[in-house]
């Protein structure tokens, strides 16, 4: 394993410290935590519902890169691939509450759900109104009684963008929760890996793929997917993922948004080629894409791969997605 790090135990605090130092006009760190909070002037000017997200590290720029005007109020970073602890989340909630309540955006992993839940209980004891929404956009895992439920993956970035914009516009906590749930219900993602990620504390890739193999349906923590197959041209990959996702939408009319997301070690060049193939096929299929985004938005350390997110979107959501924000990484 070759990584540009110091001690494995110091990865998260050092990363957060680097992020905060290089963006001190945008964010600050809550002392004694690895939580990052808005530090811009508009934060105190425009009182709004606080939006807090977080989770294990290794998915950068998610979530700290999305803290800023029009998106998140705070982000809490756990250890690599490990949910942050409730006390850190609790501190973030306290730091962003402006009397209008706080919405937690949580990816659907048992750790995240439980730790955010405990933090919610702690904040409620302080009379802060807290609600949460659970993002579970990964359709590679079927939501059934046999699993924890679908995972939260790249679609989280789109949820954070829409909810952040809506919160800025003054939407109430309860309406934000309802909106968030609707957005989540209409957001579907599926990902492929060409090469697994190497967790620093483990020191080797999470799984092995041959030089001509890819894995369909991977998660963002090196979770294996539903099939290992020979790599195909980008067009075919796009076709496979589009078919899988569209099969999950009953209604294919109306507006759509897409996200082509790089998993960390996949060059933008490949992401744009893939996006080109996706949009060509969606045009053929008469899917009306009103917003698209390409880039490393929700990564998995140094995983090589890509995910496709398709969202059936109200026109107001498209506007929320397009609104400018002041964040490090959107």
């Amino acid at each position, binding site marked *: 394993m070759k990584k540009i790090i110091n001690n494995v135990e110091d990865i998260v605090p050092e990363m957060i410290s680097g992020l905060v130092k290089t963006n001190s006009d945008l964010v600050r760190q809550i002392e004694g935590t690895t939580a990052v909070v808005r530090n811009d002037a508009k934060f105190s000017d425009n009182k709004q519902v606080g939006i807090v997200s977080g989770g*294990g590290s290794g998915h950068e720029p998610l979530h700290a890169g999305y803290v800023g005007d029009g998106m998140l109020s705070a982000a809490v970073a*756990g*250890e*690599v*691939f*490990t*949910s*942050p*602890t*409730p*006390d850190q989340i609790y501190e973030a909630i306290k730091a962003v509450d402006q009397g209008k309540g706080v919405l937690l955006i949580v990816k659907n*992993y*048992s*750790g995240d759900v*439980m*730790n955010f*839940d*405990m933090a919610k209980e702690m904040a409620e004891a302080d009379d802060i109104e807290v609600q949460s929404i659970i993002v579970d956009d990964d359709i590679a*895992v079927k939501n059934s*009684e*046999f*699993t*924890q439920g679908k*995972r939260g993956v790249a679609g989280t970035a789109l949820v954070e963008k829409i909810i952040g914009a809506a919160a800025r516009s003054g939407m109430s906590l309860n309406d934000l929760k309802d909106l968030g749930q609707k957005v989540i219900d209409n957001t579907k993602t599926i990902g492929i890996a060409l090469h697994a990620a190497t*967790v620093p*504390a*483990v020191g080797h890739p*999470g799984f092995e793929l041959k030089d001509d193999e890819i894995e369909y349906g991977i*998660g963002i*923590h*090196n*979770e*294996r997917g539903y099939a290992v197959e020979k790599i195909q041209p980008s067009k075919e990959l796009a076709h496979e993922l589009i078919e899988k996702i569209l099969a999950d939408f009953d209604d294919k009319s109306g507006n759509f948004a897409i996200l082509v997301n790089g998993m960390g070690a996949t060059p933008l060049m490949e992401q744009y080629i893939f996006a080109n193939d996706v949009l060509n096929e969606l045009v053929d299929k008469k899917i009306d894409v009103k917003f698209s985004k390409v880039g490393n938005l929700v990564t998995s350390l140094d995983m090589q791969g890509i995910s496709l997110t398709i969202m059936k979107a109200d026109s107001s959501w498209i506007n929320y997605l397009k609104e400018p924000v002041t964040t490090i990484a959107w």
Partner: protein
Amino acid sequence: MKLELADAKKWIDLFIEELKENKSNLNELDTAIGDGDHGTNMDRGASAVVESFAKKDPENLTDLYKATAFAMIQKVGGASGPLYGTAFLDMSKAVKEENLELGELVQVGTDGIKRRGQSDVGMKTMIDVWQPVSDALKAESLNQSVIDEALSKVKGLVATKGRASYLEEKSKGHIDPGAQSSAYLFESLIKVIGE
């Protein structure tokens, strides 16, 4: 039977030792059906417990379980942090008024895990060790074979909670890492109270 402070402290100390010794073993189990960090997580918690005891020696059972709970909650993260944390926090609350029978006490912890994890027996989690141990304690019949049996049962289960559940059928044939760390917990208990 009931645990007094000295024995309860010994129990937690032995558990801490087990966790430190078996860090990579727990990571390996979690690599097979999870994300490979259960050993690292529990080790971080173990260190936090040691630190907490060093700072302030627990003066009573409530303190002891609460300090253990807080260390787990504040330092472990992941799924196991809130689960162990809730178990010990609920146990701490339960012994505030009066010292409970061991079987009752561990059942309180087990119920805490079920509530926090929205889970139950048979889902291939730590509960599949906690519940049979609770039952055995209530019947005053806890011994190593209760734990061994629980683990071998866990191995055969298909996971429906936690990360391992994404593997569905493929999770079969592996020991759940949280079940294994819980086995260490109750093996430590046996060392204190005897079989």
